[in-house]
Structures are given as C-alpha cells and as structure tokens.
C-alpha cells in the first residue's frame, strides 16, 4: 500500500532522511518510534508534500502509483491523510465549510458526486459523535481557540469525515489527557482498522499503542529505520529506552 524505498530528503540544505526504507501493506498499523530529531516529522511532511522538504533520492509508491507525481492536494484525493502534530488555525473559515469543501474537492478528484449540505452535516455529526466532539465545535473556525487536545481530536474528526485509505499520524497523542487519548485511539481504530486501509503511527509513547495495537513497530534514528519488530519492541523501548534497545540491534 505504502512502499518507501531508500528515501533521502533535505529540509533546506540539511539532509534529514538518509536512506529510509519501509513497507506498510494494507490492513496494517505500523508504529514509528524514535528519539527527538530522528526525522519522524520530516517523514510525515515529505509524504504530505510540504514546501521546503526536498526529496533527493529514493521513491515512495502509494496504492500502486508514484506518490511524488502528485501535488499535495492530489495525494489527499488519492486517499492519503496527514494528521498534523501542530494543526493549523484558519481564522474566518468554519470547520463545516472547510471540511465540506475539502471532501467534495477530494470526491471530484476521484470522479465522485459531491455531497449535498444535508448529507455532509449528517456525516459530520456521526464522525464528531465518534470522537465525542460537540457539533457546535465544528461550527467554529478551524482550530481557532481550540486547546491542544481539542485540536488533536478535531484532526481525528476530520479523518473520519474524509475517510482516507492511508493515514500518517504525526504525534496525534501529544497534548492529550488520558481520557482523550483513549477516545482518539478508539477513533483511529474505528476509522482506520480495515483490511483495505493502512496507518503509519508516529508516536513517542506506549500509551497510545495500548489502545491502537500496532502490527509492526519500527525505530527511526538518524534518518533511517534501524530496527523493526512486533508490538513487543515498543514495550521494550518504554522499559529500556532507545540507547539500550538500539545497542542490542
């Protein structure tokens, strides 16, 4: 589904990703853990197509096509969702307007009919309910005045509404209290756990992985995947830390 091969990328002139190879087949949740500065967020933004992130070598195949042939909005249309570590505020634009236009733009890209206002609101209500978010919040401006936790929850409501095939979630668990973490984790399960979907879950903590049980766990360090294992790898990291686990590898 997502096949990353020997990926090298710079931010500005600085090489961050240095030969990263990783395959996430459909039906799999793959957790990426790693020390600060390893390149986890850079990986997310390279996949998202953020300006200023330059791919210098390697390839990414997404759902059978070359991901880098697509502009950022086309990647979304093709089914890629990027959950932001720091969701952006958009003053003057309501969540409802933003998400309806985004969804219909994606549907247009895929050659599907747009949703009517009524159909969209029904869908939005259902997905907001899944994340236990009040519909009133969706009528407010995108992320404006939302707390850190509310922003992360809103990201997951967006994911529910847009219903992507593949989600790259960049530290979606940071800034969440224990109850919100469970709600978000269960939201990820219910939206993305499916034989035809995949998730790349970037996280620092085992706690989210207790709820969203990963099929595979990889350690990203200095721009490469240095170790891959089952869920037990995350538990070892939690107990022993990166240095000890990576020294054994």
């Amino acid at each position: 589904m997502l096949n990353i091969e020997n990926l090298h990328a710079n931010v500005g002139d600085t090489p961050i990703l240095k030969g990263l190879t990783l395959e996430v087949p459909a039906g799999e949740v793959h957790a990426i853990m790693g020390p600060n500065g390893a390149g986890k967020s850079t990986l997310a933004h390279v996949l998202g197509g953020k300006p200023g992130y330059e791919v210098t070598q390697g390839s990414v195949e997404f759902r059978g096509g070359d991901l880098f042939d697509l502009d950022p909005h086309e990647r979304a249309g093709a089914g890629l969702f990027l959950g932001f570590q720091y969701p952006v505020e958009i003053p003057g634009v309501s969540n409802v307007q933003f998400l309806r236009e985004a969804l219909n733009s994606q549907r247009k890209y895929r050659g599907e009919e747009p949703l009517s206002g009524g159909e969209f609101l029904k869908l939005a209500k259902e997905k907001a309910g899944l994340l236990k978010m009040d519909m009133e919040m969706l009528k407010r401006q995108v992320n404006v005045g939302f707390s850190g936790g509310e922003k992360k929850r809103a990201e997951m409501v967006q994911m529910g509404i847009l219903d992507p095939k593949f989600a790259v979630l960049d530290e979606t668990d940071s800034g969440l209290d224990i109850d919100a973490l469970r709600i978000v984790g269960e939201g990820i399960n219910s939206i993305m756990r499916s034989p035809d979907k995949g998730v790349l879950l970037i996280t620092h903590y085992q706690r989210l992985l207790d709820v969203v049980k990963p099929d595979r766990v990889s350690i990203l360090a200095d721009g490469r995947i240095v170790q891959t294992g089952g869920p037990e790898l995350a538990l070892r990291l939690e107990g022993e830390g990166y240095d000890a686990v990576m020294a054994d590898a």
Partner: protein
Amino acid sequence: MPETATLPTRRDEAWRYADVDALARIGAEALDQWTEMAVPAGETHRESFIVGGDAPELRRIRLVLSAGARAELFVTNIGADYTRLEVEVTLGKGAHFEFGGITIGGGDAVREFVTTTIHAEPEATSNQTVRSVHWGTGTGNFLGEIKVARRAQKTGAAQDFKGLLLEAGASANAVPQLEIFADDVKCAHGATVGQLDESARYYMAARGLSPEETRRLLVQAFLGDALVELGDDAERERLLEAALEKLEERK
C-alpha cells in the same frame, strides 16, 4: 460651491497614492461633484454598493449626521482602472459612522478609499474596516483622516486596515491621520500587509483543496472582516461575491 478647478498632485497628502494620470482623464469637474446627504437625528442611513469598471471613476460622498444618527456604508471596489471613493462624514452628538470597504484586483490599477471623519460633537463613534487583496502590480489604498474637535469629548474612533498581496509587485498603502483636539477620546488604528499564510495553504492542501480553492477560501475569510457589520445577508453576499468573482479573473 465649487471647491477646486485644478487637478491635485501627488504632493497633496490626500492624493499621494492616487493615479493622477487617470484623474486627468476623468477631468477636474468631477472634483466638484459631491453626493450630499443629511441624516436626521436618531435615523439610520444604510448603503452598500460596488464601484469600479473599465474606466477611471471618482465618487465623493458627504454625509452630515445629526445627534444620535447612524450611517453605514459598505463598498466593494473592483475597479479595473483608477477607482477612488471619498467619504466625508460629520458626526453630531452620539452619532455613529460604520464603514466597511474592500479593494480587490490585479492589473496596474489603483483602487482607493479616502475617508474624512469629523467628530464635531461629543460621544460620537466611528468604525472603519478596510481589506485589500491585490496581485499583478495592482494597488489598494486606504487614507483615513479622523478629526476630533475640542468639544467632542468621549469620542470613540477606530480604523483597521489589512492588505493581502498575492504576488510580489502588488501593493497596499494605509495612511491613518489623526487630528485630535479633545482630551477624553479613544482612537485606535491598525494596519498590516502580508501574504497568504504558507502553513494554512499546506494544511488545506493536505485535506484535498487545490491551490485555487485554498486561495478562494482564505481570501473570502480575509475579506469577510470588512462586511461583518453589514446586517443584510443578501447584500453581504453580493458584495463578497463581486470581490471573489474578481479573484477568479486572476490567472
């Protein structure tokens, strides 16, 4: 009462960003054509319209508000040539003047709002919000003069200007001018000029919006501020839609 027979130059403060060549095409006689209106005590005058076409245009409006009167003026300026709207308002005791203006467009045209707000009596308030969106070598200006007479205590006057430039080469100018002779007044003015927020554009692209859709949505949100106080939904929609249609012309 004819005020002037000769054309102003850019050395005149109120004309410093004007397209004086275009003004010459309009002719000096236009300078004497004022639309004048008196708003009686306690009454409200509301007006919203779109100015600007393919020829240069100068409109001058003079409003005199009696005690407790209210004037609301909302204007979208989409001129493809020099288009200047001047408003001179004299406020009686406790009167209120509300102004919302949009300038939008590319090419090399200058669109401008020039307001003179005279707080002649105590306790009057005024609020002016202008949003300018330009590309090419287009220009948007807001010259706002506020005069507060010595007796006009408890005056409240606010001016807010924001420019959004979609391309290098476009420009936006704000010239607030305060002349205050009373000591118990509140006058606020702010002006900023910037570009579309890069992080918002990326975020919106990541959700599937094309660069054109993103621009439209962000410009719409930006312009919305100028029309917040326009109570008539249909009119607000009409003024905003005219501006967004102008945006569509940008290729």
